[in-house]
């Protein structure tokens, strides 16, 4: 299921870009807006469901990574979607390594590691967007 969702990404990316101009304009450009929304939502849900079934819930990765990357590489979903998948996977690997080693021989739940790193990052992104913070 995850592979299917990954394979669908390139086909959705351009349409999702057009949606940034609003649903009406995306429709004028020939994008089937309703179908695109359903496909994207169902695809994302299926992929998330499959991953959670394997690993359990791990917070903050999905919410922080795309926003961080949008700041770094811009909002073009053709690059943003695959980059998010890659960076998310890398960060999880890192978090897993930290979780296994930091209190060795015991093991920290990985969700704690991602939350410790993720919550402040998310707060930072939020405050920046609101213009409260200028870092």
């Amino acid at each position, binding site marked *: 299921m995850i592979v299917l969702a990954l394979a669908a990404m390139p086909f959705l990316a*351009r*349409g999702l*870009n*057009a949606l*940034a*101009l*609003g649903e*009406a*304009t995306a*429709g*004028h*450009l*020939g*994008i*089937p807006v309703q179908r695109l929304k359903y496909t994207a939502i169902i695809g994302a849900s299926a992929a998330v469901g499959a991953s959670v079934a394997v690993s359990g819930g791990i917070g903050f990765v999905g919410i922080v990574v795309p926003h961080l990357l*949008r700041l770094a590489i*811009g*909002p*073009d979903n053709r690059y943003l979607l695959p980059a998010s998948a890659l960076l998310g996977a890398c960060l999880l690997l890192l978090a897993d390594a930290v979780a296994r080693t930091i209190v060795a021989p015991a093991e920290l739940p990985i969700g704690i590691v991602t939350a410790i790193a993720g919550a402040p990052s998310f707060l930072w992104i939020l405050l920046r967007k609101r213009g409260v913070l200028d870092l």
Partner: protein
Amino acid sequence: MIEARDVSVAIGGKRIVANVDFDMRPGEIAAIVGPNGSGKTTFLRALSGDLAYSGAVTINGRDLSAMKLVEAAMLRAVLPQATTLSFPFTVREIVRLGLLVGRSGALPGEDERLPERALARVDLDGFAGRFYQELSGGEQQRVQLARVLCQVWAPVLDGKPRYLFFDEPVSSLDIKHQLIIMNIARDFARRGGGVVAILHDLNLTAMYSDRIFVMHRGRLAATGSPQDVLSDDLIEKVFDCRLRVGVLPAGDMPFVLPQSVY
């Protein structure tokens, strides 16, 4: 050719456009004028396939309600009255969205260069790399125009005319850029396409349009050539203010001089 017969639009049970007949031929600029809230945008949205309507609309003989999104996207491009952008895209990325449907009609291999050329046409050379959200209001409006131009770059595709639907294309532009944009519209029409433009500037309307549709409270109050339609009586009544319609000495082009609110 666009033909709309007895078109009515209701939103939330309220009738906003009532019994409008509208015709335009390729080669023409059709202007829609009328006071705020008279239903111009609503009518154009129906023509764009955004709203359910009663009555009949055909574009190039094809029934609009039976048209697929992609077919419509190849046939006409729409400039909305206002556009918001939810993510920080660059100007180039916005304009490129006009190429999504892939039938600009430019020569093979030229699509890649169209965004730059379209930007040059709206006098935005060198803006491609800028962030859309950091542009001025008039510059943003011209970027949207460039996007729309890319979508139907060739006014005629496969022997069939294509159309530009403009909802107040020059509302935030200075005089020079108003003229530049209206010249683009005229050029598009001269080369065989058609333009439907909602305008508030009656003088620009007189200068550029072949036919004027005057809307008033959701209905068509008058239609005809600028010479026929722009008269003191009609315009004063529809717009509810005092004004003078004159005729320029050179030629027979009418102009409108506002005077006062009653």
